[in-house]
């Protein structure tokens, strides 16, 4: 069946009308951007649905989920995602459109997407699968966006992910990697300590992690600290529980004093000489990471510098 953007928008309008009739106190239509989500055909629909529903609250958007399969025609359907805020009187609804296409038929999709994008608002693409994002067939879709978000942590080793990241970072959009957002709380704590301790350049740093392969987040942190001497090593081959992140510790020495952050369960212990305190890092869910990235729409010079420095970290030998 031919997919027509006008027909899909009409379907959405009809949904709004039906919803308006049934709701006594009205429905609030919320939209701050178009979010195009690129996933493979077999991606867990339920898990994806939960993530999208989660981010909808803070970043209401028209979501267009594009499922890419091996074979098949382009098909599409539209619906509304609604929720009632706690203690609220009005339902809030956002639009969601699902399109399925194969690699052969992908070429027919961008014109449909053009017609479906919300006028005058930003467009972001989220493609958790780095390999999928790097497909040449998807370049026209990515070009629609001002921001493209990938997640290199699924590749387990930055060495496998780096070429694709480098290619994706030279295009017209701003590239974001959720693996960088996984490192934010570590970086923030190190930055606070650096500020408190009064140093801006580290003499030495040691970063450890869990699981085989160099986690992209750990490589980013190493490149970001950019110390005189960097030690990076695996602490344990076992992978951590979901949402905890693979970085186990970050220790930095500057001006003769060492500060260490060590993962302890869901918390992180901070050691500065004799003082030992602790803090809780939030769970790293896709929704939380996307929330952070969707809050950064301009140039992200810290990330750009870190990405540029990762090769240097690898060249120095890990």
């Amino acid at each position, binding site marked *: 069946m031919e997919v027509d953007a006008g027909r899909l928008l009409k379907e959405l309008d009809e949904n709004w009308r039906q919803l308006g009739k049934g709701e006594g106190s009205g429905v*609030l239509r*919320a939209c*701050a951007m178009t979010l195009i989500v690129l996933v493979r055909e077999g991606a867990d629909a339920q898990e994806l649905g939960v993530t999208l529903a989660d981010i*909808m*609250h*803070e970043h*209401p958007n028209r979501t267009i989920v594009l499922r890419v399969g091996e074979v098949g025609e382009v098909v599409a359907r539209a619906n509304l995602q609604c929720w009632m*805020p706690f203690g*609220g009187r*009005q339902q*809030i609804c956002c639009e969601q459109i699902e399109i399925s296409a194969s690699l052969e038929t992908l070429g027919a999709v961008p014109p449909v997407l053009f017609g479906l994008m919300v006028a005058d608002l930003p467009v972001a693409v989220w493609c958790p699968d780095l390999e999928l994002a790097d497909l040449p067939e998807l370049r026209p879709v990515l070009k629609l966006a001002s921001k493209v978000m990938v997640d290199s942590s699924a590749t387990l080793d930055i060495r496998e992910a780096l070429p694709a990241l480098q290619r994706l970072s030279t295009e017209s959009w701003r590239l974001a990697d959720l693996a960088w*957002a996984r490192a*934010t*709380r570590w*970086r*923030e*704590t*190190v*930055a*606070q*300590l*650096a*500020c*408190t301790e*009064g140093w*801006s*350049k580290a003499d030495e740093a040691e970063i450890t992690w869990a699981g085989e392969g160099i986690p992209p987040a750990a490589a980013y942190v190493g490149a*970001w*600290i950019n110390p005189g001497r960097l030690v990076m090593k695996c602490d344990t081959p076992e992978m951590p529980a979901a949402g905890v992140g693979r970085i186990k510790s970050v220790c930095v020495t500057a001006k003769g004093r060492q500060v260490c952050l060590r993962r302890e369960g869901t*918390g992180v212990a*901070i050691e*500065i000489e004799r*003082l030992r*305190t*602790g*803090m*809780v*890092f939030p769970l790293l869910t896709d929704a939380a990471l996307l929330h*952070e990235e969707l*809050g*950064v729409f*301009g140039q*992200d010079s*810290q990330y750009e510098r870190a990405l540029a420095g990762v090769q240097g970290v690898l060249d120095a030998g890990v």
Partner: protein
Amino acid sequence: MSGPHPFDDPLRYERAVPPAAVVIFGANGDLTKRKLLPSLYRLAYERRLPAGFAIVGVSRTAMSDEQFREKMRESVAKFLEDSPFDAELWNEFARGLFYVAGDIADAGLYNSIAVKLKELDEARQTGGNALFYLSIQPSQYATTVAGLGAAGLNHGPRPECWRRFIIEKPFGHDEASAKELSRDLRAVLDENQIYRIDHYLGKETVQNILAFRFGNGIFEPLWNRRYVAQVQITAAESIGVEGRGAYYQEAGALRDMIQNHLLQVMSTIAMEPPAVYEPTAVRDERAKLLRSILAVKPEQVATHAVKGQYGPSRIGGAAVAGFRQEPGVDPQAQTDTYAAVTMFVENWRWAGVPFYIRTGKRLPKRVTDIAIQFNQAPLSIFEGESGQTWPNLLVVRIQPEEGISLRFFSKLPGSGMKLRPVTMDFNYGTSFGTRTPTAYETLLLDALEGDATLYTRQDMVEASWAAVQPILNVWGETKFDFPNYAAGSWGPAASEEMLARRGHVWRVP
């Protein structure tokens, strides 16, 4: 170090807070239990507090550190708003809680605090910085600050250390006492060490007024006497004095709400754009606006201000006591439980535009909002529209639902050009589903960071007292026939009459 720190990432990090100790006078009081400790705990939960951090509670009651921690644990678990209580995090947080008992009038207390701060500087690495929160009776401010000064606590142990002092309202009970309080504080402290807290300014929506006005290009051109007909500021409470009768009968609505909170809100709505968003620039503009408020002459008070007091009534079938029947209240009390004033701002932007401000207890609902009513369209060309009084209205809702709505005319579906007023809503809570920080979280964090933008400066305090003092003077000399409004109504009839003189009516919020 000059320029931004190379590790800084303001796009993603929260603002950094320097190490510090927070010393709370009145640690056994209601504000500490209900607001201050829950807010500090919440900041710890959000990882906003630095690694080197401690809290020292000070009050008369003898208590060990452990007893204080247990007491605060109960309070935090009970009064934490929209947040889970994490026992593991609490244990970590509680390790930084300490207690010093003593009498504010006793010099020994301040020496004990000095010893404790020195210990914490070492043991908790608080960097020699201290934020003193005076959650005590205003009559004790001068004694406490003098005691702190005598013990050398108004300055840090090293030149780079800071000492800041948060003072709760009321800042005096009239213009003269506000100046006297300032003299007492300034004898020991520099103005830039004094943080006068007005929690209204810490509310997200009040801050959002600045974003709305100065972050958008389309509203500011309309924000003046050419387009605005009137402004109404309402702060209504449905409850009565709730056991605070003895305090409230000395204060009254004009002193308790309008002189501070609502004039600060008015200054935010009406101020000129600051050159930069920076404490001095923003506060200069607020102060300038407050100084531009036209002082009411004594002979104008009867037409520019309305004093009210609620009487007994039945609401929803239940009997509600009048103010004079409340426990602890003088049966002949002349207290204003309702106050409405008309104010004019004498500057080029606002000359001639009335700002109507009202506040009261036992009104029909709890609501705080600001309504900017624009001039009517100059000509009505559509059928059925003539005689309709629905001018464009921009409403900034502060509580209970934070948001902004704009009322305008729309065509009624069907044939013909019949118009109906409709509203376009922006709801703060639902547009951003995330939890917004409480006013105390925002303000405590600002003080720790040394950002006084949302704190009141002495010239602002004096200017707002000057705006209400003529009204207080006349009311103090007049005997009112109270009660003059029933609990559950929108206030005395005289309040409607005050607006009717200019052809205006109070809107129903």
